[in-house]
């Protein structure tokens, strides 16, 4: 499972942890995040993320 980093603020999305505060269960691949999901730190859209 690849981690993805927000190019705007540096937040790292770790699929193993997910984003439970925003309804994303642990184990969710970055590609499986809904398009409406945004960076929990800065609000950037998925398109601003790069694979690590």
């Amino acid at each position, binding site marked *: 499972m690849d981690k993805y980093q927000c190019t*705007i*603020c540096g937040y790292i999305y770790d699929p193993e942890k997910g984003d439970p505060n925003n309804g994303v269960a642990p184990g969710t691949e970055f590609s499986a995040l809904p398009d409406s999901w945004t960076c929990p*730190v*800065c*609000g*950037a859209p998925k398109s*601003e993320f790069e694979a690590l």
Partner: protein
Amino acid sequence: MKAVEIKKDVYWVGAIDYNVRNFHGYITPRGTTYNAYLVVDEKTALIDTVKSPFKEELLARIRSVMDPAELDYLIVNHVEMDHSGSSAAVMEAAPEAQVIATGKGMEFLHAHYHGSEEWDIKAVDKGDSLKLGKRSLQFIPSPMLHWPDTMFTYCPEERILFSNDGFGQHIATPQRFHDEVEDRDIIDEAKKYYANILLPFSSLVSKKLAELKDVPVDIVCPSHGVAFRRKEDIEQVVSAYSRWAAGESLDKAVIIYDTMYSSTEKMARAIEDGLIDGGVDTRFYNLRISDWSEIAKEVLDAKAIVVGSATLNNGPLPTVAGFLTYLKSLRPKGKIAAAFGSYGWGGGAVKVITEYLESTGIELVEEPIQTRFVPPEEVLSACWDMGARIAKKIKER
């Protein structure tokens, strides 16, 4: 110290910091201001505060209009301490006031001001507003312009946009409006501010400008420097932001270097000669004696940068490594570059410069030029040629 009424019942109550020269690394030869605004209606709202050493100045200006204890709301557009630094002093004077910030703002307030758990803080989001009486305040979260917590506040009845750091400039003036300080280059200061604070977030700036395009604004009130109220002044700063955010650049090259015994400097001058003879504008900076924030401003709208260093202990001079670290963090887009330098035996400066520039995403368009100790005529001639070729590439772009 008195408040300055900028529109009926809307006051500037900020502080003027004439003496700050280095703002966490941002060089501020003209000082700055910390702008706070007071809106007086049936309810009263203070929009932002000032850096903590200036809290008495803030409170004195508020007192010239009203008793600070009567404040109803403290709007925290941005928690960075140059703006929120007097929040605790305000809350001490007005313990019943409600604090308003974004969700991130609330989280950041708690992490800054231990004891703020006692404050009545309300988190707001896009679309939320606050009725003060005849006037209201609308909240416009603007994450990463330039922190995750940042928001703008808009008063639709007065058509005032309190844009926090957006459109700010580090300049200390007794005047409050751009049209009152025409002998000073406010747009140049706004450009320096953009280059050093907002450049990494340019894509978000473009989106925010598009989002606000149809919002009627009579006054833009940033949190540093002067406000904009003439239609042409607002248009000028907004169109400048559009250009900077879009990465529009000029036929200009910035030469940036440090030198030990003038070898690298001689090469820098030869490259510059080639650039000038090739018909492009240049800026020329020895990093050891130059204002890095000013260099960042010139890089903002340059098409090319040329970076040189003498070799010290197998690497570049620390000034060069430091500046390149800073430049990388600003994430400039669409630039071309070349490296040059001098060495005595092992070399290494040019290699490290090249690696930095590549990792910044800057396209290297020339093979680096290096000289051993003192550059002979043929090396200086090669430097001139490189400058001329870069000038040609600049003009083709």
